[in-house]
């Protein structure tokens, strides 16, 4: 029995089941909620089975249609794919529970629920497909699927502002992925392969290769909304319904980042990447400061959280300058850890913001005055989730920043220290601003009752984000399976 279970192609099913469920949910809109919930319940178990199968059994390689590898499509089953699939499954499950309450089956917004479920399942399946893709062209196709689903989800609200944000996001997405595709074309012309591992072996580092790299990095940076290409993110993320904002900030942004991470450590290894790394590090540093400062200035909760995402993306891009020779593994693990905890923390924050908007009638932070009493649970959840964004121990955010600081010290790039520290301080500032309003001594009792599915699921995610630092060892070990980096992980380094 166990052998049969472990021998299944779980990676394959994790892509196929949500995509199939999306089609079914579209065809039977009355049952879409339950189809969505059933899929969301299944996928975490699939992810667990995939981890168990990878750790214990010798699994046959999965190739599409049974074609041999250069021609057929082989699924990647390495640690990065595993942890991203698992995080997506956990966050996706919680978001699905929350969406049950956010999009009620009856009422004047029921048409939104009807379209939310198929699109969300489609997006989920596309994300999973992206994480297991191992060649440049498949990554392009899956990235486009993710963008297409995200555009439709942003437009779900139907108003002028939402449609404009969706169309702008579509143009940005197209521009980014076409630049990436141009790079793929140049690589194919030179080496006649799009397989990541193969390409990494035979790449020679001509000037054409560097041009292709520049195009691909630029396209992916635009899609991951790194400063100064972040201009589209706050509007798109703040305009969408709360579950959609959570998905966009927690998962969609990570998709293009995962591609860049794969390319950087597998394909671009023999190219001259030091200068590009420094450039990405510089932009990341500016993103941390600029995003946090703007978050501090926002008067709306969702925009504040969106700008906080801009800042956190800045941290993610510090991986590229910090990963040098002996600190390769340290910086890489820091980045992967930050992706995982940011996904949990940010999803919880957006869900709380959505619930507050739902109950308080507006997401102006000033409307939160005195909310600490009647909707204190939400404020507590928000705070717990924010600990990982600030980077307080024992959250996962703390450990990833710790790893970044160690990598910076070992490689002698001390200037990243003040950046990381001031980013932390500013993050604490904007969280304290929200809490300050919430605990003002104002009597308010006019809040409507919140359905429990909108109250408790975010709590689960924020607790995971908070305690992630304590259980980080196992996920990190899994992430390092088949990872393109090796070397010690510096936990306490001197300069």
């Amino acid at each position, binding site marked *: 029995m166990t052998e049969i279970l472990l021998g299944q192609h779980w990676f394959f099913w994790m892509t196929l089941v949500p995509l199939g469920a999306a089609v079914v949910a579209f065809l039977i809109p009355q049952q879409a909620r339950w189809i969505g919930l059933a899929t969301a319940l299944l996928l975490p178990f699939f992810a667990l089975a995939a981890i168990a199968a990878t750790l214990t059994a010798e699994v046959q390689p999965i190739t599409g249609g049974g074609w041999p590898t250069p*021609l057929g499509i082989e699924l990647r089953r390495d640690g990065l794919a595993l942890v991203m699939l698992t995080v997506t499954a956990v966050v996706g499950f919680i978001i699905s529970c929350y969406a049950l309450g956010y999009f009620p089956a009856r009422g004047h917004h029921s048409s939104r629920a009807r379209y939310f479920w198929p699109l969300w399942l489609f997006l989920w399946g596309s994300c999973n497909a992206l994480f297991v893709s191992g060649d440049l062209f498949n990554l392009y196709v899956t990235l486009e699927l993710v963008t297409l689903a995200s555009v*439709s989800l942003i*437009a779900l609200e139907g108003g*002028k502002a939402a449609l404009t944000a969706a169309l702008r996001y*579509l*143009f940005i997405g197209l521009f980014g992925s076409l630049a990436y595709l141009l790079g793929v*074309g140049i690589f194919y*012309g030179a080496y*006649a392969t799009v397989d990541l591992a193969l390409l990494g072996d035979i790449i020679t580092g001509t000037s054409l290769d560097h041009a292709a790299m520049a195009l691909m990095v630029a396209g992916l940076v635009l899609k991951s909304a790194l400063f100064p290409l972040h201009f589209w993110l706050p509007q798109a993320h703040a*305009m969408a319904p709360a579950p959609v904002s959570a998905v966009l900030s927690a998962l969609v942004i990570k998709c293009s980042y995962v591609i860049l991470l794969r390319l950087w450590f597998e394909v671009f290894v023999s190219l001259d990447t030091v200068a590009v790394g420094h450039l990405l590090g510089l932009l990341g540093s500016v993103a941390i400061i600029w995003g946090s400062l703007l978050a501090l200035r926002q008067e709306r909760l969702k925009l504040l959280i969106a700008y906080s995402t801009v800042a956190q993306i800045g941290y993610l891009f510090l991986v590229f300058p910090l990963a040098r020779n002996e600190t390769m593994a340290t910086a890489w693990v820091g980045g992967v850890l930050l992706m995982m905890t940011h996904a949990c923390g940010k999803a919880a924050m957006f869900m709380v913001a959505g619930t507050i908007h739902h109950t308080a009638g507006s997401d102006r932070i000033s409307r939160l005055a005195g909310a600490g009493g009647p909707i204190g649970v939400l404020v507590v959840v928000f705070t717990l989730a924010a600990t990982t964004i600030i980077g307080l121990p024992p959250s996962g955010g703390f450990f990833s920043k710790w790893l970044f600081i160690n990598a910076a010290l070992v490689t002698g790039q001390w200037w990243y220290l003040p950046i990381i520290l001031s980013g932390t301080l500013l993050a604490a500032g904007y969280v304290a601003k929200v809490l300050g309003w919430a605990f003002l001594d104002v009597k308010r009792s006019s809040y409507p009752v919140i359905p429990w599915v909108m109250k408790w699921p975010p709590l689960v995610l924020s607790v995971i984000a908070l305690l992630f630092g304590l259980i980080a060892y196992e996920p990190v070990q899994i992430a390092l399976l088949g990872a393109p980096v090796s070397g010690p992980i510096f936990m306490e380094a001197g300069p």
Partner: protein
Amino acid sequence: MTAPILYAGCGIILFSIGLHALLVRRHLLRKILAANIMGSGVFMLFIAAGARGEGTAADPVPQVMVLTGIVVSLCFTAVAIALAVRIHNLTDCTTLAVDEESSID
């Protein structure tokens, strides 16, 4: 100058023209057209990348990729036109408005 280089060069020129129009033009239909022209430029580069020298048959893999790419670009165009038509119906406006900062409520 060999034929593949000519094709690839033209592809990159098409890409740049499209990019310019996507950034500069404000009318939504023009933006959508511009994105399509960018896509065509990339596809042309792919076709050129399949060339394998004088007298040998071209590599079919990039052509298959272009077919996939055309499907993707068709989907995007369809969604973009649907959104643009909806924006036009709602606002009588054919451009992306800038002042949405004040309309989140």
